[in-house]
C-alpha cells in the first residue's frame, strides 16, 4: 500500500513540475489499456511488465487504470458486441483457428468476446490517449500550475519554514 501511495505522490509531484510529460502521458495510455481489458490475460501481464521495464509513470498508470475500469464496466456490452463482430468475421476465421491452436497465444483469451472487444478498443485508442494526455498535461501546467504559483497563497506557503524543510527533505530522500 505504501508503495502504491508513493507512486501516486510521485505522479502528483511530476504533474506539477516541468518534467516527465511523456512519462505521464505513457502512464495514462498504459492505464487506459489496463483499465479497459479484463484482468487475468497474457496481454495484461505483458503491459504490466512493460510498465515496469520502461520509464512509464506508474502512479499515473495506476490512477488511470482505476478511472478507466469504471468506464469499462459500463462499456462491457459494447466490448462484447465489438468482440463478437471481430470473432465472427468470416475472413478472420482461418487466422483465429491458427491462433487458437498456437502455443502461448491461447493465454491471451482472445477468443472471449469481451477480451477481444476491449483489447481492440484499448490498443486502438491508446496512441490517441497518449497524445491527448500530453496536450492536457501541458495545458494543465500552463493554465493551472503556473497561475497557482503566482497566487499570494502559494507564495505564503513557500515562505514558511515547513515548506523549506519539506523541499530539503525531498532533495535528500525524495
Amino acid at each position, binding site marked *: 500500500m505504501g508503495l502504491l501511495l508513493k507512486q501516486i505522490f510521485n505522479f502528483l509531484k511530476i504533474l506539477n513540475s516541468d518534467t516527465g510529460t511523456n512519462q505521464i502521458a505513457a502512464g495514462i495510455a498504459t492505464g487506459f489499456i489496463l483499465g479497459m481489458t479484463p484482468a487475468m490475460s497474457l496481454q495484461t501481464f505483458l503491459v504490466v511488465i512493460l510498465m515496469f521495464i520502461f520509464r512509464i509513470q506508474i502512479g499515473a498508470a495506476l490512477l488511470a487504470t482505476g478511472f478507466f475500469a469504471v468506464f469499462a464496466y459500463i462499456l462491457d456490452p459494447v466490448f462484447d458486441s465489438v468482440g*463478437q463482430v471481430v470473432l465472427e468475421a468470416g475472413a478472420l476465421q482461418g487466422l483465429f483457428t491458427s491462433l487458437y491452436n498456437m*502455443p502461448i497465444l491461447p493465454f491471451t483469451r482472445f477468443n472471449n468476446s469481451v477480451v477481444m472487444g476491449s483489447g481492440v478498443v484499448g490498443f486502438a485508442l491508446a496512441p490517441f490517449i497518449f497524445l491527448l494526455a500530453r496536450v492536457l498535461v501541458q495545458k494543465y501546467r500552463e493554465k493551472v500550475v503556473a497561475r497557482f504559483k503566482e497566487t499570494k497563497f502559494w507564495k505564503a506557503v513557500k515562505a514558511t519554514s515547513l515548506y523549506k524543510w519539506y523541499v530539503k527533505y525531498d532533495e535528500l530522500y525524495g
Partner: protein
Amino acid sequence: MTNSMDNKETKAQKTPKKKGPIRFEAIIPTIIVVALLAAYMTFFFDSNLRSGIEWVGTRVHGAEINVGNLNTSFINGTMKIENIQVTDKTKPENNMIQIGQIRLGLVWDALLRAKFVVSDAAIEDIGINAKRKRPGRILPKSDPSRSQINEIETAALDVTKEKYNKNILGDLATVAGGVDPNAQLKEMQNDLKSEKKIAELKASLKEKENAWKERIAKLPGKEKFAALKQEFKALKFDSKNTVQFLKDIQKADKILKEADKEVKAITSAANDLNKEVNAAGKDIGQVDKWVKEDIADLQTRLKIPSLDVGDLSKSIFLNMLNEKIGPYQKYIVLAKEYMPPPKSERTKTKSEPLVAPRKRGEGRTYKFPITKKSYPLFWLQKATISSKSNEGGFSGDISGNLTNVTSNPAWVGKPATLDIKGDFPAQQVMGLDAQVVFDNRKEPTQSTLKGSIQSFPMEPLSLSDSDDLTFKVNNLVGRSRFNGKVVGEKMALNIANVYDKVQYDIDSKNKDVKQLFTAAAAGIPAINLRASVKGKISALAWSIDSNLGRELGKGLKKQVQEKIDQAKKQLEAFVYGRINKEKAALDNQFKGLKNQVDSQVNGKKAELEREKKKMTAQIEQQKKSGQKKEQKKLEKKGKKLLKDLKKSLKF
C-alpha cells in the same frame, strides 16, 4: 578560477542525472516478485491444489474425499497424487475406494497451448472397503454447494422409486398368522375417499339443480310462441289486394325470423344444459374408480399383501438394487457433461442464448476448430492401473487401463475405455473383470458396461424385521454377471446374480408362521436373481425375477392366498356397505335431474321446432297461392290487352 570551478561542481551536484527510457532500478523489485511467485509455487501451490481437489471431489461425491499428498513439478510437467481416500457414503468408517498413488505426465507442448494432455499416467495400489482412520464426513442434502449434484442424484433415484411394499414378507406373515380386518375396520372412523366424493357430488348436484331450474324457467316459453302464432293467424293473405298481400307476406317472414331466433336460443340453452348434465354424469361415473382406490388404500393400511410372484421378487430386491445402482446414474450425467458429444445446430442455439446477463469480462467464449497439431482442453491418453496386494494392506491385485478420457471425444476419435481385472483378497472380492466404454464421439452418446465378479461377499439381507416375522438371509457370497448400455437417454442394464449356500435366519412369535416360512425357505439353498432395468433415464422400469420370490410365493400360496382373498372380500364389503346407500341416492338424484332436463328443455325445443315448421309451411303455401293468383291475374290482363289490341287493329 577556483570560484568558477566550484560553481560548476555545485551545478553538477544540483542537476540530477538524466535517466534513460529503461527503468534499471526495477530489476531488484522484479526479482523479488519473481522469487515470491516461485516461493508460492514451491511451498503453497501443491497444498492449495490438494485442498481444491478435496473440496470439489467431496461436493461431487457427497462424502469426504481426502488426498494424502500432492506434488507438482512445473519444469517437468508432472503431478503425483498420493493416498486418495473416497469415503463410503453408506458406511462412513470405510473407504469406498482408496488409491495409493496416481502419477501424471503432462505434455509441455499442450501446456503452452493452455491444454492439459496426459500422455502417460499410472494408477497404483487400488483398494476397496478399506477401514478409515476416522469416519468420513457425509455432506447433508441441504448443503448449498452441492445443490446441482443433489438435483442430478435425486432425479436418478426418483426414477427408480417404484412403489413396492418394503416389508411384504412381514405382511404375509401377519396374514398367515390370522388377521381379522373387521376388527380393525370398525376402529376406522375416517371418511372413505369415495364417501367424501359422493357427498360432494350430491351437494354440487343440488346446487346445479337449482341453477338449472332457474335457467329452464328463463327459457322462451309457450306464451311467447303463442303470441307469435296469434300474430301470424291475424294475417289475412288477401290475394285480391296485392299490396296488402305483399305486406302480410313480409310480416309473416318477420314473425318466422323471430320464431327462428327463439328456437335457436332454446337450442343453444338446451345444448349447454345437456353438456353440463353429461359432465356431471361423468363425475358420477368416477365413483367406481374411487371405490377401487379406497379398497387398495385400506389394503395397504391394513397391510394385506398381494401374493403376486413377480411382485414378490420385486418387493424383496428392488430397494437393494436401487441403493446399489441409483447413485451411479449421476456419473452417466457427469460423463456426458464433461465429455460432451459435438453439438448439433439445434442444441447450440438452445444452450447458448444470444442475450444473457453476465459479469465483468465474462462475455462469450468462442471455440474454434482444433487443428491436427493441437490438443483438446483435456486428454488423458492412457493410464495404467496396477496394484499388488500386500499382507495387512488394503490394496488388491489389479491390472487394467484407462484410455482416451477427453473433453473433446469427437476430435480424439476414440471412445474412453476402462478395462479392469483382478482380485481384492482382503475384501474377499475375487475375479473382477469389467469393461466400460464411454463413446461420446457423436449423438446419441453410447456407453456400455460388461463384466463379471466370480465371488463377492454381501451384508446379510434383512427381508423382514417385524414382530410377526424376522427373515434374514446370511452367508451371502455371490457371483455376478452384468452388462448394460446407455444410448442417448435410454438405458438397459441386465444383472444376473447367484448367491450359493445361503443360510436363513427365520423367527416369529407364531410357531405356525415360523414353520410355514422355514418350510418355504428350505427349498431354496441358493438364490438366483435376474434383474433388468430399461427405459428412459427419466422413467426407468425394473423387471426382477428371483427364485426366492417364486419359491416363497409357491410355498405360501396355499396357506395365505385364501386368507388374503377373504380379507380383500371383507374390505370390499366394508367399503360398499358404507357407500352403497349414498351411491344409490346420488344415482337417483342424477337420473331424476336428467329426466327433468330432458323433458322440459328438450321437449320444449321439439315443440317449438314443430310450431316453427308449421308456420314455415303455411307461409310457403300462402306465397305459392299468391303467386298463382297473381299469375292468373296477369294472364287475364294480358289476354284482355291482346283482345283490345286486336279490336283496335280491326283483326
